[in-house]
């Protein structure tokens, strides 16, 4: 069984979690062109690597960040979002 560690609830089976995609900084929609906005909405960094991702612990509703190697599927660390764009 694959496990993931929620910063609040501890180590739980992966089935309890939902993947939220890569962490990205949202541009101000009033400040960017339509093309830049479409780039933010649709385009993704699809290449393999160590990525910072959103994960959701479905049972308790906790959203947090996981750093994961997408090639080996190994989670390096998990922590709560600080509230500041990094």
């Amino acid at each position, binding site marked *: 069984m694959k496990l993931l560690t929620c910063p609040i609830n501890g180590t739980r089976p992966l089935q309890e979690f939902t993947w939220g995609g890569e962490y990205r900084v949202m541009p101000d929609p009033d400040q960017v062109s339509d093309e830049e906005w479409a780039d933010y909405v649709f*385009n993704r960094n*699809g*290449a*393999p690597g160590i990525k910072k991702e959103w994960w959701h612990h479905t049972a308790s509703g906790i959203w947090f960040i996981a750093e994961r190697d*997408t090639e080996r599927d190994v989670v390096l660390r998990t922590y709560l979002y600080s509230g500041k764009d990094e």
Partner: protein
Amino acid sequence: MPLRLLRFALSRRHPEPRMFTERDKLGKTYDVVIIGGGGHGLAAAYYLAKNHGITNVCVLEKNYLGGGNTGRNTTIVRSNYLTPEGVAFYDRSLKLFEDLSQDFDLNLFYSTRGHFTLAHTDSAMRTMRWRAEVNKHLGIESEVVGRDFIKRMVPEMDLECSGHSPIQGALYHKPGAVARHDAVAWGYGRGADMRGVEIFQKTEVTGIDVENGKVKGVGTSRGYISTRKVLCAVAGSTPRITKMVGIRTPIVIQPLQACVTEPIKPWLDTIIVSGSLHVYVSQSDRGELVMGASVDPYEIHSTRSTLDFTEGLCAHMLDMFPFLSNTKVNRQWAGMADMTPDFAPIMGKTPIEGFYIDAGWGTWGFKATPVSGETMSHTVANDVDHELIHTFRLSRFKELDLTGEKGAASVGH
């Protein structure tokens, strides 16, 4: 012992022609370089040579021919899609498939089975009626059928599905078929090879040389190639290649798993798909049940398999076919599906002159092999998007003109 066997034992070189020429030396310059020796890349090479007379072409494959998603899918061919553009495109592919064995002089075991998409709810039945009407309007053999018809065609199925999700009806697509998938790659490879295309296996692309927005060459593990045209047909490796030229796409890689059972006596001569139960299944000529489900729920760039997948799939298989409870799963594998937000491929020209893309094939690529080869070769030869793929262009995202092809994947939405 037949005498011809002796020739194989005593000859220093293989005495019969191989499927393709094994070449030692990469050329210095080609008119077109195709990255990816799967069905799509080889089909494009074949039609470039056959339809457009362009034969100074090389195909570069990092691994072995047809070893990626071409050899990992569940071999289903159908054209009962939802949008008029999707239907026209996949129907052209199905027509090409039907004549392909003749074209190649190679048996693809193309077998027309009839394809059922089961509906377990009222809302699923509504979608089936919608798809059937779109299909019929566009001349595709596709109709909504009731429980009696399903019972007659697939008597082994428990229409109540153990009582908790009874089948109400189905979308029935008579031309739905299966084919031997690796033979499709080999057939295109041999046809291209015979016409002068050079195929290199175990050859990895390390970089793409772009100057002033134009392709100049390709760096490979066997040396540098000068070329002005590159076609990228690498499915799950697409983001690695587009990163080399600095193009952004919406593609996210998610593994799609599949498995086969041990061979059993033939009993299933149709293709069964259930969106609600997340299962598709057909029986191969060897008697194995070939089964698949939806993509794994997060991004992974490898082809690992999981027990979760087999457990979930088998539970749903037993809902439909309880008598299989003693049948064993023999093999399991995964492919890297290049998913797009609108379940449609990304094909054609890109902002880089001379760099063409054939990607975003997610879970629906095998059935499109012939038509993607045909349309991409036209696009590369003329430097103009073929009319059938205009709707799949990369720029549709920035133009907010997505396709809405929800009928694309059989399961998962």
